[in-house]
């Protein structure tokens, strides 16, 4: 499993191809589905508006959820704090990029 494969592996861009159910997201993040529901309620994750009985998320939600989980676990921040930290981090990233583009 650790040797080099001769044939190249190909995969899709996850953010553009995936539509995730709450079950997928919970499995991929190794957390309880309830935790994902809490993220939605706190505004950490947003649900894609489609006419379905079940919630769906874009692939981008995975990165956000994993980041939120790391912050929660490593820094012992509560949900509201995680939501705030994520918003501020994204703002900083946006400003950094803008600064970089203006340099």
């Amino acid at each position, binding site marked *: *499993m650790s040797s*080099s494969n001769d*044939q190249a592996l190909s*995969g899709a861009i996850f953010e*553009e191809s995936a539509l995730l159910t709450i079950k997928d997201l919970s499995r991929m993040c190794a957390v309880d589905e309830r935790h994902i529901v809490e993220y939605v309620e706190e505004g950490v994750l947003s649900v894609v508006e489609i006419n379905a009985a079940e919630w769906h998320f874009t*692939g981008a939600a995975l990165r956000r959820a994993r980041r939120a989980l*790391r912050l929660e*676990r*490593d820094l012992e921040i509560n949900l509201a704090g995680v939501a705030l930290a994520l918003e501020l981090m994204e703002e900083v990233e946006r400003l950094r990029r803008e600064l970089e583009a203006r340099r």
Partner: protein
Amino acid sequence: MEFKDYYKVMGVARDATEAQIKQAYRKLARKYHPDVSKEKDAEARFKEVGEAYEVLKSPEKRAAYDQLGQGPRPGEDFRPPPDWGAGFEFSGAGARDSDYSDFFEALFGARARAESSNRRGGFHPGQGVDHHAKVLLDLDATLHGGTRQLSLRVPEIDAEGRLVSKERVLNVQVPKGILAGQHIRLAGQGARPPGEGTPGDLFIEVEFQPHSLYRIDGRDLYLDLPVAPWEAALGATVKTPTPTGTVDLKIPQGSHAGTKLRLKGRGIPASPPGDFYVVLQIALPAAGDDKAKAAYAAMAAAVPFNPRASLGV
């Protein structure tokens, strides 16, 4: 094996209280958290701090660690004493997927591992865990697509049941148009579950190395293009490098430093494709010889111009 002074790592005294240790950890964790920090060695420092806290926050582990004393003299090799761990009951490390140092593994490894692997399995039986990795690609990979050889560190359980970090080399077809922060999902390339079942997936997060010419902003690319003062003032058609080759770019008359020209759809070929921005910079020719000096003097005489008018002087 290198002795780790966990008190030094945390910046606390050897007689620090639990509250002081917790406070020091919180502060350092915020400072070096890889999601938050821009420090160069943030990830390594964060792991080190996490490991130190793992030991010092637990009264049992801390007591056992304290028994080792101050460690060997500088340059001396550390070996755990033969009676190490006797009489101590460790309650196990958290289910972190980071790798601990050899020092930590030698002292607390086996027991912590048993505990955490119990906790990790069983979440969705028959379904292997997904692996996540981050790679630094050249910009050309997304501009033109193509195969890149990626070398990843992958956690694996070895024959003795220990968690080890192995190097894994993969040839991966990079999807054209992928953006920084997005993931390539390789189905079935994650961990195999014990026994029967579906292996997990491998998610590769993409970041880009800085490019020699272009700055990257999401799907857009920026190029600083030097032009001569007369090209900006009078307008000109100049050669410009773009990701899809050199083009003739029309500089409009009356352009100035900082003028931004947009080449729609010539950024990263994502869907929708990004744009390519050319930012003009005025390059001044040197007044190197008498002819150039005369030309500058003639211009000064002919053109009434106060570049500091906006400063009120």
